[in-house]
């Protein structure tokens, strides 16, 4: 009577393997940045930089000057202008920002605002020197409340830290914001 024992071993192995397959996290959830949640007004400490969410403005349109052309951008949603103050901790570096909306959707920096004065995409942050920058997003208005500004050191922040900065008090929506150099 060797069969019941063998069948039990095979069944137990199958159950174990099935359990492992079901519970093993997939690649996308394993390969992620480390999240640090920062309350409104607080300074977040990431591995390679520290940053603070200093101001938030909402506007129907934005106006700025780029390559000696006056540009006005309008939108079906709203322009969210996030002002940040950041400082590198280890080496001169750039930062990338994403707005994670209330629904969890991720809005990248608006390319239509490329070239604004103090724009985040062209800003370098030096160790020991605090620097201000502006990040502009275009998104539906109901994604603003309950959202967070996600700051990372570079476009791919896998296994690096990502700061989730809660926004300061929500402002009134302005008809237009002009960026002066």
């Amino acid at each position: 009577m060797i069969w019941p024992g063998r069948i039990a071993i095979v069944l137990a192995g199958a159950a174990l393997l099935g359990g492992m397959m079901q519970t093993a996290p997939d690649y996308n959830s394993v390969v992620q940045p480390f999240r640090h949640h920062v309350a409104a007004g607080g300074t977040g400490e990431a591995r390679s930089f520290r940053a603070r969410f200093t101001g938030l403005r909402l506007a129907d349109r934005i106006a700025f000057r780029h390559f000696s052309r006056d540009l006005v951008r309008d939108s079906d949603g709203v322009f969210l202008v996030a002002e940040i103050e950041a400082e590198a901790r280890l080496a001169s570096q750039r930062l990338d920002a994403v707005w994670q909306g209330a629904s969890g959707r991720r809005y990248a920096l608006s390319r239509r605002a490329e070239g604004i004065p103090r724009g985040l995409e062209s800003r370098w942050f030096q160790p020991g020197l605090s620097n201000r920058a502006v990040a502009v997003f275009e998104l539906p208005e109901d994604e603003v409340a309950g959202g967070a500004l996600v700051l990372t050191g570079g476009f791919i922040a896998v296994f690096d830290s990502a700061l989730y900065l809660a926004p300061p008090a929500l402002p009134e929506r302005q008809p237009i914001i002009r960026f002066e150099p």
Partner: protein
Amino acid sequence: MTETRRTSLLRRLRLRLAASVGVAAAVLVGLWLKVQDARAPQEPPAVTLGQAVDQGRTEITPLSLSLAPPERAGEPGRLLLRARLLNLTGESQFAVFGFPPHPPELASGGVVWPEPEVTLDRDGELLAQLHPRLAERVTLAWQLPPDWQPGPVSLTFHRQIFKLRDNLYGMSNWLLFQPAARMTIMPEGAP
């Protein structure tokens, strides 16, 4: 002694034979399915203006196709497709027509035209990205080939396949393109 040896040999032979037949049958069935696919090329579903087409990352709704004068003097005339684009994913997309880009393919008399220029109607500038839940009106502009005679053209839309777990790393990935819809239409403004 020889009797038992012969039976065991026969048994082993039978087992191997069964396995070989099974593998051969699987290969043949797979081959036959491929042949069937090639024999009857699948025509993508036909769509008309105003009908939305799922392209994978985005959804395109063609609104009108018309002939237009050249943008600058000395250049050939243009064929303009006005459309509405909507991001179907949960993040801003830079590759609106997939990566590598597969914008709608315009063919006339079996000849495929070079890729169009995609502009955002709002700014009149090249479309750089598309945010979730913000639909945008865009214009796709093709330059008319010099020898083109006005007539019906066909537009083929492609869909890129998304896999939540690909076979290599088990990561989410955008993979192959396949034709999602075709539209045969006479451009407006043609004589």
